[in-house]
């Protein structure tokens, strides 16, 4: 056991049973099927044993939002303990078909995006079809499923004329599944901003980061994805070229989730993790080094902003507030709601849909009360959840930044 592995195992020892996590957990607040982080995390962990039957089931209701990790005064890695426990459940009891499908966002995206996207979208918006999907696959009929794009980001990127003039510093862009198949405009905005800042952007081959697989407990599949991505990204990481992503969950997976949950701690894995940045974290660093252009056009707006759970897990504060705070006129109102409820694929599931909607209610109320027609959030699934629940368009903050730079996307 190396030291990271050890620190995860030992982290359960830090628990002093104080209940702070349980009183903050948004899922435990809305349902009694989930006994809360202290119970399912450090407490239950003392009763788990890899070579014996899996003793529990309720941990499956953890959404992975990590509010608990954040408030815990002693540093117990509760959400990670929960994810590992869920993987054991999956290993013993198998994974429902539904989870198998939503956990493979890359595959689903590949099958549904492209020229036939309108048809797929039509089916997904068609109530009887959703009803069948719910019955067969356990995906709740009202759960927000993304609209597939008519083109993929990668295709767009390949066909465009890249900005490679001169000796520009390079940066690698990790787009993730959602940008590729559902929201290419987010990727386009990111490319525009990075190039505007003088970078040459490289988009190496990549697979789904594997987070949906991890959060549904399919660890073996997640591992093969991660190893592929590390192989693709490693040359850049070794050359000191930063890897940036617009999806807070993808970057988190590269940085920490995959290595820790899968117990992968080789030098290569670590090098890629250490070279990966959330795009706003990267921009904030640039600003601190005095390298961020501030030629912003004023945007006179006050917008609601929801820092998603995955961002919380980066433990880097609120880089979006730090960077967008530089735009004259723009005021962001930070949501203090714990979670939108969707937590990746959690809120899609039939038995969890209502929990997710209840969890997200304070956020939805906040967004609606803002009276704005636009909200910001760094995470794709959250954006879909917020838009789905409130009808308020929700965009990635990089799109606003591109707008402030006057870049047309």
């Amino acid at each position: 056991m190396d030291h990271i592995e050890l620190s995860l195992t030992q982290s359960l020892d830090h628990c002093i049973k104080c209940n702070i996590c349980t009183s903050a957990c948004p899922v435990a607040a809305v349902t009694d099927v989930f006994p809360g982080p202290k119970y399912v995390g450090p407490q239950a962990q003392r009763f788990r044993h890899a070579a014996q039957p899996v003793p529990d089931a309720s941990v499956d209701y953890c959404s992975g939002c990590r509010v608990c990790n954040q408030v815990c005064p002693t540093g117990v890695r509760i959400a990670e303990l929960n994810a590992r426990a869920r993987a054991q459940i999956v290993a013993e009891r198998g994974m429902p078909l539904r989870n198998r499908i939503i956990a493979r966002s890359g595959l689903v995206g590949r099958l549904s995006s492209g020229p036939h996207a309108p048809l797929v979208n039509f089916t997904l918006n068609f109530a009887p079809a959703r009803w069948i999907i719910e019955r067969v696959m356990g995906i709740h009929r009202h759960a927000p499923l993304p609209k597939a794009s008519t083109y993929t980001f990668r295709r767009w990127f390949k066909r465009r004329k890249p900005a490679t003039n001169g000796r520009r510093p390079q940066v690698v862009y990790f787009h993730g599944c959602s940008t590729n198949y559902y929201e290419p405009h987010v990727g386009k905005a990111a490319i525009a901003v990075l190039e505007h800042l003088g970078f040459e952007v490289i988009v190496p081959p990549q697979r789904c980061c594997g987070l949906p697989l991890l959060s549904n407990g399919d660890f073996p599949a997640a591992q093969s994805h991660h190893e592929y991505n590390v192989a693709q990204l490693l040359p850049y990481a070794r050359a000191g070229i930063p890897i940036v992503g617009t999806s807070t969950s993808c970057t988190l997976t590269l940085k920490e989730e995959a290595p820790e949950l899968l117990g992968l701690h080789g030098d290569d894995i670590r090098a890629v993790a250490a070279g990966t940045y959330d795009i706003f974290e990267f921009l904030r660093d640039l600003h601190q080094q005095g390298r961020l252009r501030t030629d912003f056009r004023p945007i006179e707006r006050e917008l609601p902003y929801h820092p998603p759970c995955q961002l919380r897990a980066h433990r880097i504060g609120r880089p979006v507030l730090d960077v967008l705070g530089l735009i004259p006129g723009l005021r962001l109102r930070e949501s203090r709601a714990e979670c939108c409820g969707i937590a990746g694929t959690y809120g899609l599931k039939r038995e969890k849909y209502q929990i997710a909607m209840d969890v997200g209610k304070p956020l939805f109320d906040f967004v609606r009360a803002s009276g704005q027609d636009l909200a910001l959030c760094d995470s794709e699934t959250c954006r879909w959840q917020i838009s789905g629940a409130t009808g308020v368009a929700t965009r990635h903050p990089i799109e606003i930044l591109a707008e402030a730079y006057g870049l047309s996307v």
Partner: protein
Amino acid sequence: MQTLSTDVLVIGGGATGTGCALDLAMRGIRCILVEKGDLTHGTTGRYHGLLHSGGRYVTKDPQSATECAHENAILRRIMPHCIEQTSGFFVITPWDDESYGDVFVANCHRTGVPVQEISVAEMLRREPALNPRISRVFEVHDGSADSFLATHSVALAAREYGAEIRTYHNVVDLVRVGDRVVGAIVEDLRSGERIRIDCTYVLNAAGAWAGKIAALAGVTVTVVPGKGTMVAMNHRMVNTVVNRCKLPSDGDIIVPIHTVAVIGTTDVHVPDPDVFGIEPEEIQFMLDEGEKLIPGFRQYRALRAWAGVRPLYKDKDVASDRDIPRTFKLLDHEERDGVSGILSIVGGKWTTYRLMAEQTVNELARRLGNTQPCRTASEVLPVPRFEHRAHAMVTVSTDPAAQTPHYWLGKPLALVESEHAAGDLICECELVTRDRIVAAIDAGAHNLDDIRRDVRMGMGPCQGGWCIYRTANLLYERRCADGLSHTHANEAILHFLQERWKGLTPVLWGDQLRQARLDELIYAGVLGIHRLRALAEPGGGLVTQHPAIATEYVQA
């Protein structure tokens, strides 16, 4: 003075005495057992938790090894709910003599202790926390066993067969007429009243206290109280018993039992089984030894430390106390000292308690003219009410192994999940529900420490932070109609907190120090228990401060 009479008066409510009471009762011999504290108050409640395979004794004490191997199989059968089939490793670390490995295996074969060598890779696959520098690994049939529960099960069966078991009854004198012991004077610690118990035979099963009992009859039995200290770590870093493959010495074994991993032990000669403490060097020594088996051992959280005294019977002069044979001895004082009416059973181990009882009762039965055979090896023991319901089904797991009658680590959690009882946990760390606490109270607990032993309440990381408060209140609510007043409940809390503190101070650092501070915030800050000291007094059927049952002084 009230007078009772019986055939055999058993002194000592440890594994041995209780086992004897059951065997006597099964054969239809009338008996009363008296114990000065709760059942398992002595060494039985302070042991390491190992169901011996015999491996530890194959070289120095072959007879013990064979006995252990034999009893091991029997106990798995008759008390599955008390035993976890953890298996055990004997490992050769860089600090051990390589050549002992072959000697060990040969001696296992000689003594009938099943053994099999496995590869280091296989060991690391099963126990990734173990030291990868271990060079050889031998697997044996070690297990872990809950001696509290086992003793309660034995006592329950004994009662069902008609034995009378009286806890909190301290033997203060033996009645001798000429050269014959004819009874005992016993003090009921709850009321202070004295009782006389007349009997044909006194069976001295007082473990480390056997010398003191024998002295009451005017005979000398030398029991060397060898104190052994153990440290419980907050979770099981290993799920297999891990022994160093060498001649038994200090800090050479880690036993996973219930939720904890216990490292032990030391062996320090103490003058009196009632007066000993835990020295800081002992703890440091064990952490160092633990580090050899599990790298990073010091970084894990230690929960508490405690010590037990070995009832080692010293026949003749032996070099070191560890050289005293671990096997047991039945002393016939008539033949040995010319005093009849009393037998002493000394030495042995928890694992061999049943065999000790069998041989002792064979002898008593012969003298009493009883010809019934011993049946304790075949009758499965009952499960006390305060334990999980006897045949509670695990509904939450689809694995058929979840329904085994043996204890397994996840079982308490699986039952809580099956019953949706998360919100009803009084002791959250050890998953003890309200129903089980109430059952333990109703079974006659005489203080909170009894409840702790019965159901493990207060044994987890928080060391009673929440559950002492809750349990004391339940105790008050269940018993206030029977004369237990608020003053007794207040005293019960104060007593328990202080008892806990003794076991805590030796291991307070890191998270456990922080926990102790949080517990201080709870009890002194939020609840203000110290402000109720004037409203606290012993009584109400509780025993909290009697000198006869006080053990361990504190030394941090």
